[in-house]
């Protein structure tokens, strides 16, 4: 509310409501804007339109029954959320995961990351007024959805990981299909580069727009491509290695500029890095079990609190568990990356032109169900 109701009536500003139903917010997000002509004086995101209290649901059902919820927060990279939750519970309950299962997790999570970045790419350019790239990106993304459907059984709200392993093994068709897809996407990336990235209109819309300094990113706890676009070399996969990520050779794209173009470039480069990880994982894929030998039936972590973070497509997703030794959580805190990433919008958008602020908002890659949880 600060200053919102108390604003000086003599001042020539007006209030503008962006959302809750607006195409540029990609979901039900509302932003209250105080405008001075075309310039933003104050921007305040209003959240909670699709708040479902997942954290309470975590408390009133068993550990395993919460698994499907993980696919319904960040619906564009649901497997990262699966991964964060099962890894936290596995840490708390001391469950060992067979190596093959960890490889399958990495392969599917990275494919999911590519599909998430592709959708963001299409939708972001759509925000800026370019319609065509969305259709190309969806064409590519469709291939990933088909691949993931064949192994996980679902196309969007995946619930593929189990405590101690994964639900289903991959087959030869998946492996050949994935290799063919990577070959195809490698051919398509130069096209995206020529069609979009080098496009002068896109560059003019993004270069030097919405600068986020290193210090601002730190004060707000921004992670993921937003932090890496501000010159912070921070990726949970490298910083706090989990699963089998240390076994793969991949780069962390970091851009120093801190503008919307930098965040765009980080995600575009990450697509290639994820493809490298998938390729290496398929090459090295070990034989063996995908579930623990002794089935995990009742999970009862010891009393205490535990934390586990993973690198989701939008940044660091953390799970804080407090267990009281029973078969459901005493407290389950879900730290979603875009919640922190969006919180800096008010400060970053101050003084910007409205269309530029929408470019900034698009470059944050918002998924509203994940913010509201």
């Amino acid at each position: 509310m600060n200053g919102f109701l108390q604003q000086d009536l003599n001042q020539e500003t007006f209030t503008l409501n962006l959302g809750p139903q607006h195409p540029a917010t990609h979901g039900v997000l509302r932003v209250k804007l105080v405008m001075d002509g075309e310039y933003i004086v104050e921007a305040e995101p209003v959240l909670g339109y699709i708040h479902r209290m997942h954290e309470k649901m975590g408390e009133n059902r068993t550990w395993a029954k919460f698994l499907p919820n993980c696919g319904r927060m960040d619906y564009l990279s649901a497997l990262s959320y699966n991964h964060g939750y099962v890894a936290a519970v596995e840490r708390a309950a001391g469950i060992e995961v067979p190596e093959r299962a960890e490889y399958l997790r990495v392969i599917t999570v990275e494919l999911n990351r590519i599909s998430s970045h592709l959708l963001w790419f299409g939708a972001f350019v759509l925000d800026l007024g370019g319609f065509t790239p969305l259709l190309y990106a969806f064409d590519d993304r469709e291939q990933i959805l088909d691949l993931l459907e064949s192994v996980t059984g679902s196309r969007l709200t995946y619930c593929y990981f189990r405590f101690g392993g994964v639900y289903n093994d991959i087959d030869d068709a998946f492996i050949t299909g994935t290799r063919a897809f990577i070959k195809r996407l490698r051919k398509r990336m130069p096209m995206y580069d020529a069609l979009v990235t080098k496009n002068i209109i896109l560059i003019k819309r993004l270069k030097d727009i919405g600068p986020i300094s290193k210090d601002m990113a730190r004060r707000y706890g921004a992670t993921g491509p937003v932090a890496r676009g501000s010159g912070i070399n921070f990726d949970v996969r490298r910083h706090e290695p989990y699963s089998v990520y240390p076994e793969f050779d991949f780069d962390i794209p970091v851009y120093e500029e801190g503008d919307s173009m930098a965040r765009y470039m980080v995600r575009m480069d990450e697509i290639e890095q994820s493809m490298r990880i998938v390729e290496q994982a398929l090459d090295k894929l070990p034989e063996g079990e995908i579930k623990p030998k002794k089935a995990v039936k009742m999970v009862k972590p010891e009393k205490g609190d535990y934390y586990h973070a993973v690198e989701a497509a939008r940044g660091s997703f953390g799970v804080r568990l407090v267990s009281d030794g029973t078969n459901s959580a005493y407290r389950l805190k879900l730290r979603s990356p875009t919640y922190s990433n969006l919180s800096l919008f008010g400060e970053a958008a101050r003084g910007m032109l409205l269309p530029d602020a929408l470019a900034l908002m698009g470059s944050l890659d918002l998924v509203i169900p994940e913010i509201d949880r």
Partner: protein
Amino acid sequence: MLLAKIKEALSSLYEDIQEAPEEPAIEEAAAEAVPEAEAAPAPEAPAEEGGAAQDAEAETEEPEPAPPPGPKEMDYKAKGFHLDVALEPEKVVAAAEILNRENFFIEAITGVDWIDEQQLEVVYDFNHFAELCRVVVRARLDRSNPEIPTISHIYQGANWHERETHDFFGIIFTGHPNLEPLLLPEDADFHPLLKDFKA
């Protein structure tokens, strides 16, 4: 490296706790000051709680001597964080200032309802961009009067996390610029993550 450095820096917050029992003069002075300040609510509450506390002591019979106060190093592989810092609520701001000086960033703030002990816990998760070092700062509040100073002037990202914690637990962050419901409806007067919440 960073872990040892931040542990030492945060240890300074415990200095006066270790000294306190040796100087009863300060306690007396404080005790005299209290009745004037909060005369009305004080007499009733301690009578009940005192009884409960005595029962609890009789049952447990002091299982083991309490470890010396200070930041505790944790087993990272088992727990997922390095340093556990349990503080008095009023020390949280000083802790945030120390962490800010060492360039930590804030991951999240949340609460835990310990209804059996009639306490609410506020948990702050900090992490570092350059070196892996997760610091958890926690403070316990009285459940009937949960107040803790805000750290949103140090970490602007704490603003939303504190609002969320206020939504879910009713914890009041004193000095917060805008403690309105964020995720709950704007007229919400309930706190769903309290253990005695009934829908």
